[in-house]
């Protein structure tokens, strides 16, 4: 039992961090970023290149991933999403753009980094073993802690910094924020860059444990969608809750339902659908996101 909870918490921490970036972008611009998973993969590959190929310390890889993705995110917002949002009649049109970017990043990743699974060596060795009740390798504990630390840092940033406050105002009411003198364009760009940066950071963190390959992008996006749906789209606390809930569901579901085999994920997904049908706005979302 302790093991199941520990697994759930570890999964939850990494999921929550992925969901945060996605929900930030969604709350600011009403864009469902289909390319979020690809950004995560790109972050992993950047970290891999810096750490495994160039032989730099892991922390440099982490920073490099964050920077590359932040710049990329900013550019994507400025030159792709902004003009399309301005000119399209329906908000949903950005979905095609996001999907196009996802394909494009997939293609670039394949050309630049190849088709193979990549990973970097463990950051710390050894396994924490509490009487065989909880077994958790130290590197997992470290990455889990780092993820939680980043989540806390993100919340503090959104709560107390000027940019954070401006973005929250923007998320609440775009027009009102604009009337109050918030530079909407600037903060949309910063927000998108931050969202992309978060995706890149998770990718870089996880490359030490799960590794990275170009196929992880699409499924990661979909998982992130699930999490923000559970918690409520565009709400930061919702994304965190969603991440931990999905992590827990997988951990518990896989243990409890293991004897039924093939239906485990069917049950998890069906439960999600029923939950959303009953509570359409997720746990803490605004209705009709």
């Amino acid at each position, binding site marked *: 039992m302790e*093991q*199941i909870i520990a*697994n*759930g918490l*570890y*999964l939850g921490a*990494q999921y929550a961090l992925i969901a945060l970036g996605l929900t930030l972008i969604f709350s600011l611009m009403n864009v469902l970023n289909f390319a979020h998973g690809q950004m995560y993969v790109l972050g992993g590959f950047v970290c891999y290149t810096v750490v*495994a190929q160039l032989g730099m310390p892991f922390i440099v890889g982490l920073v490099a991933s964050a920077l590359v993705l932040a710049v990329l995110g900013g*550019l994507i917002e400025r030159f792709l999403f902004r003009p399309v949002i301005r000119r399209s009649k329906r908000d949903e049109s950005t979905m095609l753009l996001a999907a196009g970017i996802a394909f494009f990043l*997939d*293609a670039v990743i*394949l*050309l630049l980094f*190849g*088709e*193979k*699974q*990549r*990973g*970097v*060596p*463990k950051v710390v060795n050894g*396994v924490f*073993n509490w009487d*065989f009740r909880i*077994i958790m*390798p130290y590197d997992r504990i470290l990455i889990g802690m780092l993820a939680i630390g980043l989540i806390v840092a993100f919340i503090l940033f959104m709560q107390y910094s000027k940019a954070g406050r401006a973005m929250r105002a923007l998320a609440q009411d775009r027009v009102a924020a604009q009337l109050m003198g918030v530079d909407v364009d600037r903060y949309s760009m910063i927000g998108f860059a931050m969202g992309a940066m978060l995706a890149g950071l998770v990718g870089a963190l*996880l490359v030490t*444990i*799960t*590794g990275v*390959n*170009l*196929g*992880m992008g*699409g*499924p*990661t996006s*979909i*998982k992130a969608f699930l999490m923000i749906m559970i918690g409520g789209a565009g709400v930061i606390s919702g994304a965190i809750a969603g991440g931990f809930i999905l992590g827990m569901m*997988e*951990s518990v579901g*896989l*243990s409890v339902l*293991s*004897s*039924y*085999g*093939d239906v*485990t*994920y069917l049950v998890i997904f069906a439960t999600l659908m029923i939950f959303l049908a009953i509570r359409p706005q997720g746990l803490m979302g605004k209705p009709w996101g």
Partner: protein
Amino acid sequence: MLRRSFLKSTALAAVATLALIPAAHAENAKLKIGFVGVTSGPAAAWGISNQRSMEARAAWLNELGGVQIGDTTYDVQIVAFDDQKDPKRAIAGMEKMAQDGVHYVVGPNVDDGAAAVRPVAEQKGIIYFPYAFPKTLYVAPASNAILGMVANYQSGPAIYKYLMENKGVKKVAFVAANESDPLSQRDSGIEAAKALGLEVVSDKVTYQVDTTDFTPVLLPVLQAQPDLLVLSGVSPANAPQLIRSARELGYEGLISTETAQDASVLAEGAGDLAEGFISVGGASTEELASDAMREFVERYTKMFGEYNDESNTKVYALEYIIETLKANPAAISDVEEFKKTIDTFEAPNPFMVGDAKLRYVGESSFGQKRQLSVPLVVNEYRGGKFETLFVAEVD
């Protein structure tokens, strides 16, 4: 701006390569061999190692002056089509092959694609070499598909038997991704294990291919305390993570799979934890590789920057096609002739030391010869590379 110039330069590069390929060897006639498989998206690794093996071998043959079939010397040209792992696209790919006058196609890489292209292949007279295991593809009345590798229901029993006899394995557990190919492979693996008298202690646990943490997946499996953990149809991307999670959970038994893996991927993803991992490969281990195989690896690496050990099994299909055509030049445009040659064909295996032969097998599994005899080399991962555990043959 950056992106635009990048696009422009890649477009230019694409046009340039397209223009250059035909110009290089203008003197010989062309022998077109097709490839329909997945070279983009999540499963890209399967198809890419396939396509690159073919391209590397073709370039090598052409450099030697081409291949002589009958009285004509041909340059081998690989026509590739990316089906995105979508059976609907695979049909389109096969149609395109028929359109280009291609009669021999390597691929598709997965069960659904291989089943979907069957009507086209049979109607248009194409022999294809899928890397998919369903028996219906190879058992009569199906006649145009030839299995390109060793099926897991052939390698599985051999591996289990070896481990029973040599490592005292009694209890076995299976874990598979919840997709068609791995699940089918799991089911036939369970059947084989039971037939050998092994106790199957866990056979129900499945995972999504996009799982990022396998600890919860493996927890219930390992609680059943198997001596051998079989990763059915595991993709090279998932294998290191599964191995790592199992070892970190304190599992000390054996781990094996019946699919081909890549040593460097295992080294990066699982490091020392992958020691002793058993998988199936071609003839690339030090002990077995011939000079030709070494040169192939060298050329592949030079052409594409990095070798992929999965190509060890995938180098064979093209070789078989060309050698069989040499044996019966009439088959070049008539697959019925090819089918006639299948029964008696035999040629030396250039990639393996000793007197191994290229020949068609499958009588006992399919009732007709619809399989390439690829040496069943069972490897063990040791210190960053594969070592031969034992070699067997399929009949």
